[in-house]
């Protein structure tokens, strides 16, 4: 009976590995085929030289950093406050942070367009900068579940209450406690959330496309529609970025959350 499970398990693993590795290998192989008859990195050269690549990739990186910053500033104090002073509100706050997982991104951005279009009260789609701001907010919304869960777990681990009380006894005020005591102890949780956010924002398509911003996601889709080999090179690059981000998360602390991706 024992050797039987082994065989079935090995077969399952083998098939699973094949299914998951083949597309990666195939993509990489395809990306090397740009020059007829010989394997080369021509596709990558073309991609990196494309000014569009540079602008959109740069744009997405800036967006990602802005999202991470805004996300941290929004989530960490809130999580800390709820943890410490308003435990009764915890379920409500948690429920709100889970809403972006339930409401599809396309619906959220649809809501933005209806609510913040040029003829509305707050015409955020009126100018480019304002739309950029709207995009960052949409990204913060998308990454909210992961950022909050990461910070919340971190807070639970470090026993916030006792740390705060110890700091208060030693004479610190609220701001000092937050920035000098809590933040440093939450670094690994914050970094986990940050890298996850980075991975989400870099490849994001729906929001950027419907808000008409020059981000990396829509650029990817455009290349895919028009070119043959460059898309696979881009896919390889995207995969490496995602892998690197997740790898860094593992380095800074285990993250069991998975993003339902689009």
């Amino acid at each position, binding site marked *: 009976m024992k050797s039987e*499970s*082994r065989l*079935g*398990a*090995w077969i*399952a*693993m083998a098939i*699973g590995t094949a*299914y*998951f590795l083949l*597309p*990666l*290998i*195939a*993509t990489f*192989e*395809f990306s090397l085929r740009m020059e007829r008859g010989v394997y080369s990195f021509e596709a990558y050269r073309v991609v990196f030289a494309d000014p569009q690549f540079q602008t959109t990739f740069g744009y997405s990186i800036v967006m990602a950093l802005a999202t991470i910053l805004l996300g941290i500033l*929004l*989530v960490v*104090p*809130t999580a800390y406050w709820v943890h410490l*002073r*308003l435990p009764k509100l915890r379920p409500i706050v948690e429920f*709100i942070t889970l809403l*972006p997982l339930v*409401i*599809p991104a*396309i*619906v*959220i951005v*649809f*809501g933005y367009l*209806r609510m913040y279009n040029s003829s509305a009260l707050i015409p955020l789609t009126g100018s480019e900068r304002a739309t950029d701001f709207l995009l960052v*907010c949409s990204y*913060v*919304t998308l990454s909210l579940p992961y950022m909050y869960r990461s910070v919340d777990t971190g807070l639970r681990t470090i026993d916030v209450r006792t740390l705060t009380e110890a700091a208060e006894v030693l004479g610190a005020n609220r701001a000092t406690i937050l920035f000098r005591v809590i933040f440093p102890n939450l670094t690994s949780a914050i970094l986990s959330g940050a890298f*996850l956010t980075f*991975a989400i924002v870099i*490849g*994001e*398509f*729906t929001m950027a496309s*419907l808000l008409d911003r020059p981000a990396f*996601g829509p650029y990817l*889709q455009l290349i*895919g*529609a028009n070119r043959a080999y460059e*898309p*696979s090179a*881009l*896919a390889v690059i*995207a*995969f490496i970025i*995602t892998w690197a981000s*997740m790898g860094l998360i593992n380095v800074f602390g285990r993250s069991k959350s*998975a*993003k*339902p*991706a*689009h």
Partner: protein
Amino acid sequence: MPSQPAARKPVNLNILGVVPFAIFALMFLILPTSTLMVGAFQDANGHFTLENLRQLFDTNVRDAYWISFKISMVSSMGGGVLGFILAWAAVLGKLPAWIRPTLLTFSGVASNFAGVPLAFAFLSTLGRLGLVTVLLRSWFDINIYSTGFSILSFVGLTITYLYFQIPLMVLIVTPALEGLKKEWREACDCLGGTTFQYWRFVALPVLWPSIVGATLLLFANAFGAVATAYALTGSALNIVPIMLYAQIRGDVLHNPNLGYAMALGMIVITGLANTGYMVLRSRSDKRRA
């Protein structure tokens, strides 16, 4: 001197702490979604109507919902079964110890690797010039495209969706499998039970809330996905998110309120699926305690 009701003041200040979060949530999550839901019940002049909801059942839209439903159903059940088998193999299959953490790490990455790059990856694999297509032709003389298969189809999209559905299932179901106490199996053995009886009477009954719950989550996940479909099948496969995308972009339905109704339909479906997941999860959590 009358004593001050000191309790009041601190509570007020405490609430202030969550005001930024509340404002953000309202402005960028709750209100936008609400305006959509309200808009679903309005006509062009802003008056209350159920006409939009009725129009959801018109051929066009109804077909889109049906295709979406089918694809979500197939990819979530397929992902559910396959993901469960993989997780079972890693946790209970008596494989070398390094396989489980590797599978979990990979699943964490793979469940994020979706959208446009994933579409490209599968085009490179099973597209007309894809690696697997070419290898099947040159090694085994099998031309999959002659059988009518195409990566740019319902089947192709489902296969592509599985790439993030299976890892998601693995991530959710692995803790449940690890929660199966080894002593239950041993107790069952002592009482004379076979492997089949163990799974039928003990393991599967204990696991099914997690399995069904996870499948529901997968369903919701697939239903709301748009980027992968857009990059792979484009408007060739008219699923609800694609239709909604086109509607947002260019009002192809010539009725903005119908678009809101479609969005409402999506929220209802994903909301129901997620609620199902949470109910089942709390049930299995209670049992474990």
